[in-house]
């Protein structure tokens, strides 16, 4: 028995080493780094204990970043979910050209983020962008709005992100829709249920589990989204009005050159996400299990 246990551990060892090296070590090292005032590139470092955490507890920039991150993640998730579910329901119907349309809907998700952002920045540019050109040409406005200026930059960022990531919801939700037994709909129709009631009482309960996972994954991904935000606003300019937590962590590390501070922000981001996930599980886990 003891020998077989040893063999078991020996067989597990490569996986444990791999997980420990690739997942455990970086997380622990990051936490260790968060206890230091450490220059990003030079060897200078001083142990400060929880000093970095105390600093961020009262740092206005940190809380502002949490706020912007919340607005960005929250609104993009709601919009992706709404748009994605509606699109999936439509694509689940039978009509001519459905296959082609299913492929086209996937397109935004398959292109690189940098291409998507350049495309949208070009469309929204107030000097030569198509959107403002159409608005002015149709007489909708005389002075083109500055979509990439302070007042609209968050909206522009949200639109770009929703456009790029809603296909994930479409694909995932559509896959689940296709596995719902048609008999359930037939029975509901016989009972006199209209389209809305069929959706409410058949589709929604059947797809609860997949919605649970979609919200969880997209929530994590949008809250930690860096590339789209960075490419859209960059540094300086109006970037301070969309400076989410990942961007702030990056700036602390690579532009302020304070690696310890950056590591602290990463730990805090991890804590915030873990907390939010725990609450989410607490609120909706039963529904998921029932589903």
């Amino acid at each position, binding site marked *: 028995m003891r020998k077989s246990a040893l063999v078991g551990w020996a067989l597990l060892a490569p996986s444990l080493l791999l997980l420990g090296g690739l997942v455990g070590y970086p997380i622990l090292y990051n936490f260790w780094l968060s206890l230091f005032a450490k220059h990003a590139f030079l060897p200078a470092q001083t142990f400060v204990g929880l000093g970095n955490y105390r600093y961020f507890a009262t740092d206005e920039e940190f809380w502002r970043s949490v706020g912007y991150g919340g607005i960005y993640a929250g609104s993009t998730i709601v919009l992706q979910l709404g748009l994605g579910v509606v699109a999936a329901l439509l694509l689940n119907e039978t009509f001519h050209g459905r296959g082609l349309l299913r492929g086209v809907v996937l397109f935004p998700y398959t292109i690189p983020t940098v291409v998507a952002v350049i495309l949208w920045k070009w469309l929204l540019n107030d000097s030569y962008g198509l959107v403002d050109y159409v608005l002015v040409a149709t007489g909708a406005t005389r002075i083109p*709005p500055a979509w990439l200026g302070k007042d609209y930059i968050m909206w522009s960022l949200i639109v770009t992100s929703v456009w790029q990531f809603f296909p994930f919801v479409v694909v995932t939700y559509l896959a689940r829709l296709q596995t719902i037994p048609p008999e359930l709909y037939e029975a509901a129709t016989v009972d006199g249920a209209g389209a809305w009631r069929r959706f409410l009482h058949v589709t929604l309960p059947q797809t609860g589990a997949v919605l649970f996972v979609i919200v969880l994954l997209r929530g994590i991904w949008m809250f930690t989204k860096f590339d789209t935000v960075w490419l859209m606003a960059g540094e300086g300019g109006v970037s301070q009005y969309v400076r989410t937590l990942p961007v702030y962590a990056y700036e602390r590390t690579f532009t302020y050159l304070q690696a310890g501070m950056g590591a602290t922000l990463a730990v805090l981001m991890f804590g915030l996400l873990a907390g939010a996930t725990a609450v989410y599980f607490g609120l909706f886990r039963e529904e998921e299990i029932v589903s």
Partner: protein
Amino acid sequence: MKNQIGRPRPRTLAPRLSRRQFLTGTTATAAGLALLGRGPAVLGQQVRELQVWHTEVEPQTVKTVQEGSIAEFERRFPGFKVRQQPLAWGDLNTKLLAAIAAGSPPDLTHLNPFMTASLYTKGLLRPMDELIRALGEKDIHEATQKLQYFDGRYYGVTHAMGGIYIAERRDLREQKGLKPPQTYADLVDLAAALTEEGTRYGLTMPGEKLYIGFSFPAEWLASNGGSWVDPTTWRPRLASRAMVETLQFLRRLNPFMPPSWSGQKYLDTLAALATGKVAMAYLSGARTIGYVERDAPEGMRDPEHFQPMFRPHGPSGQTGVSALDGENWTVFSQSKYPQEAFEFLRIFYKREHYMKYCHSVPIHLTPIFKSMINDPEYLAHPRIRKWRSWHDAMITGLREHRFLPIGFSRPDDKLLPFLAELDGSGIVADMVIAAMVGGADPDAAAVRAQQRAEELLTQLGFKRWS
């Protein structure tokens, strides 16, 4: 002799080869090729690579360096190969710091003057007094000569100089009967006069952090009697009168700028000027000429329409000051081939190579040697002849001490070891944008920036005030 299907086997010219002969021959050939490939190493002439990084990314400049200085260096130092790596200005600092941290910096690199003090205090730079003497210490222009001079020794030499100006549509200003602005208030009035709602804005500037959060604020401080920090205590002076007055001026200027200016990049602003969407571009060097010659309407690609103007000064200042674009060559103490790096620089500054280098982007790359600035051969370049007023502006600016290195609010800022971190933090950019487009009260924005800057310098260990 017949094959299996009864046809005669074709005759072959090659003699029959046994397996042993084939294997022996192949092995000998492979060994020979390997030996040839490592020939120079075997003969004691191992190819060594001199890593040279610089910030002049224009293709014609890269080609000029390759065909001039590098070609001569490689001829004179057989066994050495020079690898030049042109880097965008904004990428240099991060890449350089990462290379230093990894213990493998380039042998020779451009360095922003505001970073030099930081690296010097850490003992990372190698002195180059001998080279400076060989180049002609007294011939190097005073505007650049002692930017990297610490404790009686030279640690860098500027590659070339380029003045920064406001580029204007001179014809539009003259139509209005207005003079070039001398003060902040003049510039606001001029921008207002040149703005035509819906068709043209008076002025634009790039919103990138490097400019709006570092280069311009240093100029504004210098032009309004201020400085980044107290010279003795290093306490930041972002809430000083010099800065608050500047923020008030910027707020007055903002209505005459495109609504999305803060999202624009440097080259966008030059395109906007060349195509008539704005009447003035706040950030302009002689590179602007290239964009004007490419994008401006036919018949307008000349200095009668596009002209440089000096920065105005603020109510508490005497003279408008702007940045002098000019990184310095530096050799690190960790450089692998320092002597060869210095030899490369001697070749780089040789008259025939250096003249071609400066001509690769005329006026933007103005020579550092006083003897060459007004040299007829240098001035004979067609673009300098055509755009002579831009060259003259450069000379006037140098004579009137209107230039400081990028990010300097006063000459002694070369001694501040934290300018790179201040630039990187974006604290100043946040302040300027909040006051200009965010509707924040200039005093409040300045106080907040002051507090953040004090926190930053304290965290970095540079707090000297009590």
